[in-house]
């Protein structure tokens, strides 16, 4: 059944975005109203489409390519979430972005992001998905670049990194398409042998880099400082996680039968574990509210990748559940960061402190989401992390250990963040700080409520959203709603959290400041050296790439000089030398010329006589 309504979730925000650009700059209210209306309509539309199964197909571009879209429970859920976040962030931005430049572009890019993400999620053809995927790259670049002059460099960095991984995705699409003989995602079923694994890994690179896993993460912390905050809350925290993990789930669950016996599964888990640990270690030492959050946005992806990579029911469900949970609490955290930035004028932790009493609602939202991200029961993060732990432990204690250790550091860093920003002694200049306006509080409150709801009543998300995606065949009769099955893991988690709290209290007391509560890890014997190098971007793949590119360019430059010399120096000098020599032989002496001729005659005659 072909249904034109499927085009609406893509076209509505797209045309609204274009329209926003046309509104004259003076009518700021119209711009905001238009954007808000559009995302609200989008939200209503996607809510109406929820629980429906639709397909749309149109011949496209020739070569037998179909512009095919498919709405089913997974994609319907993702576009609903996208529209929801889009609406909340737009609402939040009406206050936050008010005094910023490039307001129109911001809303236009926001709407384009919503449009392209919906398109990429709805696409049932790999090429169509790629089309929207690349469109997102454009919107990403634009959204970072409009913030300031300094942000342009970060935007370029993001563009280059994402562009390179998109190239991998493109190759993966081509390889997968040629292996499967079709580009329709719902008809691709490949096994993970030789070329199949390569195709999977290429697609996976595209997916996990979109989600922001290591080593493709390095633009996110930079963007956290440079880009407008609603962008951080919307794109890297929510939309990109949803989209990246969506694709990862599609390729590992539907298109390739990722089994627990596959080496690719080990690879995925390793990427996940490494991402969790390294990113959280970096988050631990950050002294800036937004930058700290951005490293967690990287770290948490590790849990999702680890969960899906386990290829066991608990892990997959946990990974997907963590995807939506993370989108919720990380957006909320960024929004609290934005509220602090707006009201206190800074996000430097050293300049903050004690503002919790001045901004009680923001503080409350922060507590809910920070507790959720740390995995404290009974919030949503607790349940999804328990499921990931369960899956990881079934595959090997190393992965579980990494995940649990990551959890310890996560808790530690949020204790430090909350303590340093909201508690403690208030600075003199922060005494005037007031609570954020309502339209900023509303999105935070809404998301915080969802965090609690998805935790306390996790039957709702798990039974209605997550478990249908995994499917009854893969679930093998499990139902993960309710309390975790493995009590031992819960106990260990509680011990880890208690240890984190104890560690924080001890360190904060010893150092006399919440900000320095992680210094004992920062300046630990071996770690301090590594941290110093990491702070200098020694491990940033982008900077390494730039350095390598610089060396290559230098080598090419010298090759070029050498070739120039070959043409301009060597050849000319050789020709001149030869010419000079020949000229010197022509003395004008006739006996010389005669002897040449006679020698020539003798040689020619002898040659002819001998060779015939």
């Amino acid at each position, binding site marked *: 059944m072909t249904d034109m309504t499927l085009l609406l979730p893509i076209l509505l925000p797209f045309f609204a975005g274009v329209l926003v650009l046309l509104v004259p700059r003076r009518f700021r209210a119209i711009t905001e109203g238009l954007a808000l209306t559009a995302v609200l309509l989008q939200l209503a539309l996607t809510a109406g489409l929820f629980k429906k199964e639709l397909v749309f197909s149109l011949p496209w571009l020739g070569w037998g390519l179909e512009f095919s879209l498919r709405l089913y429970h997974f994609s319907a859920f993702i576009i609903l979430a996208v529209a929801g976040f889009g609406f909340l962030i737009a609402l939040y931005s009406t206050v936050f972005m008010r005094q910023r430049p490039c307001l129109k572009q911001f809303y236009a890019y926001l709407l384009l992001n919503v449009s392209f993400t919906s398109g990429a999620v709805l696409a049932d053809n790999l090429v169509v998905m790629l089309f929207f995927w690349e469109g997102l790259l454009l919107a990403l670049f634009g959204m970072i670049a409009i913030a300031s002059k300094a942000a342009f460099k970060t935007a370029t960095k993001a563009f280059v990194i994402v562009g390179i991984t998109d190239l991998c995705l493109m190759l993966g699409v081509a390889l997968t398409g040629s292996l499967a003989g079709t580009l329709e995602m719902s008809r691709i079923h490949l096994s993970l042998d030789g070329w199949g694994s390569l195709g999977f890994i290429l697609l996976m690179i595209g997916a996990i880099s979109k989600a922001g896993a290591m080593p493709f993460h390095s633009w996110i912390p930079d963007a956290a400082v440079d880009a407008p905050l609603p962008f951080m809350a919307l794109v890297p925290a929510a939309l990109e996680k949803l989209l990246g993990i969506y694709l990862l789930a599609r390729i590992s669950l539907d298109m390739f039968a990722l089994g627990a016996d596959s080496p690719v599964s080990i690879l995925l888990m390793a990427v996940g574990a490494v991402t969790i640990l390294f990113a959280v270690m970096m988050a631990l030492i950050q002294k800036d509210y937004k930058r700290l959050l951005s490293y967690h946005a990287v770290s948490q992806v590790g849990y999702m990748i680890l969960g899906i990579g386990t290829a066991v029911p608990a892990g997959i469900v946990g990974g997907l559940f963590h995807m939506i949970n993370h989108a919720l609490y990380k957006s909320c955290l960024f929004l609290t960061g934005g509220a602090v930035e707006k009201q206190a004028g800074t996000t430097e932790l050293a300049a903050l402190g004690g503002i919790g009493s001045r901004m009680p609602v923001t503080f409350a939202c922060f507590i809910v989401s920070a507790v959720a991200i740390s995995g404290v029961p009974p919030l949503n993060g607790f349940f999804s992390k328990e499921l990931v732990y369960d899956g990881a432990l079934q595959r090997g204690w190393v992965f579980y250990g990494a995940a649990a250790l990551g959890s310890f550091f996560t808790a530690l860093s949020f204790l430090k963040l909350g303590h340093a920003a909201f508690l403690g002694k208030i600075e003199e200049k922060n005494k005037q700080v007031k609570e954020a306006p309502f339209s900023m509080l509303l999105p935070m409150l809404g998301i915080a409520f969802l965090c609690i709801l998805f935790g306390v009543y996790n039957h709702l998300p798990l039974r209605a959203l997550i478990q249908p995606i995994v499917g009854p065949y893969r679930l093998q009769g499990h139902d993960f709603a309710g309390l975790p099955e493995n009590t031992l893991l819960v106990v260990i988690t509680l011990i880890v959290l208690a240890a984190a709290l104890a560690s924080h209290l001890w360190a904060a007391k010893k150092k006399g400041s919440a900000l320095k509560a992680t210094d004992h890890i920062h300046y630990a014997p071996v770690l301090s050296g590594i941290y110093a190098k990491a702070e200098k971007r020694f491990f940033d793949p982008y900077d390494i790439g730039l350095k390598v590119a610089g060396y290559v360019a230098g080598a090419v430059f010298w090759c070029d000089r050498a070739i120039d010399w070959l043409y301009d120096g060597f050849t000319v000098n050789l020709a001149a030398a030869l010419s000079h020599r020949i000229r010197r032989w022509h003395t004008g002496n006739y006996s010389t*010329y005669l002897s040449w001729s006679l020698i020539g005659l003798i040689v020619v005659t002898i040659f002819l006589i001998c060779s015939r």
Partner: protein
Amino acid sequence: MYAYLILIPFFSVIILNLPFRTTMKKAAFWACLVLLLAQMCLVVFSAIFPGCSFFDIFKTLFKLDFTADNLSRVLLFSIALILCVTLLVQKSILGDKERIFNFVNMLLIILVGMNGIVMVRDIFSLYVFLEITAVSSFILIGFNQDLDAFEAAFKYIILSVIATALMLSSIAIILLLAGDTSFSAIASTVRLSPHRLLISLAVGIFLCACFIKAGLMPFHGWLPDVYSAAPTSVSVLLAGIATKTVGVYTLIRIVNSVFVLDRSLQHLLLALGAVSMIAGALAALGQRDLKRMLAYSSISQVGYIVLGLGAATPLGLAGAIFHVFNHAVFKSLLFVDSAAVELETGTVQMDKLSGLAKRMPVTGFTSVLASLSCAGIPPLAGFWSKLIIVIALWASGHYAYAMLAVLASLLTLAYLLTMQRKIFFGKLGQDMAEIEEAGPVLMLPALILAVITVGVGLLFPFVSILLKGNLLGG
């Protein structure tokens, strides 16, 4: 009917020199010009209407062994064209009626010689016409009666005499073996004779004589001195057509219809051609005298022609003949331009000249065209003939020679552009502010030659049909 091409100039010389020659003196220039134009028309006419029997009546009157195939026709046309140009150049350099009259006489004699060379089918007759051409060349070189020209003429005589002696020895050996001097008889003897050693000796000696006449390296010693010391009009004649007819045409004819072009001969031709092509271009690169540079350039271009011949395929032969024609056109054009420069500034030393294109636009423009054609830049005529030669070399498996041919093109471009930059481009020299363009009598042939080199290049598709039909098929 082609016999008239020899008989009419021959009788013209006699008539011009009958006792009442004062009246003849006035008409000599025009008579010669008309004669040459008639020859061009005849060749073109007979090429377009091959079956025409209008002239057949005369065949019954004179029974001589003169025939013209398509190779000869190309040469006949080129000879008439270049002689026309020579005559016009001489006219504009030297207005004196008496001298012009003498010049016309010599020109008619050399016309007899060259027409004879391209039409005879007998090796001894070939020798006779070669001598006629050579002797009149000596006189023409020394025509201005200055010391350098005499020295150059003397050098030419000496090497030419050696070539003649070699040729006579070779003919003697051949006569000994074949008992006849006609091409067909010799050809069968060369193929069938049991005396391999003697045949090889005769072939080697004859070829060396041709090499000397054509100025291939290392037999070229006379050529730069002669071209630079001779009057410029004679340089046009010698570089454009005389040495090409005497040396290159003879070589092509002998190698193709008399001697067997086997592998060893092929290797010999390719090697000598490559040496001439490269060494000639390198030598040209270092010259400061314009005419001397053009002389070395001639050696280099002859190398191309011999390379095409050495490819030993119909395509290579066609390229070689086409290049003979193109070379006649662009090298004559360059010499005409050098004549204009010499006439107006009194020197051809490149270091003393600069920026002449501003004062002599036609000369500058035509010389650029000729240079580009010589270097093989599309779409000028020279490009196509060089391309054919390179393709023929490649197709026959001589990859190294094909590469060398392309490389030599770069060298050609290098020395010709250096020349252009020094003489015609750049800032006008202070002492040259009053220079004026040469007269119309000199610029007319330059323009005609330029039109030919551009036209043949642009209309190459038609030319290629002619080449295919006439040279390859014939």
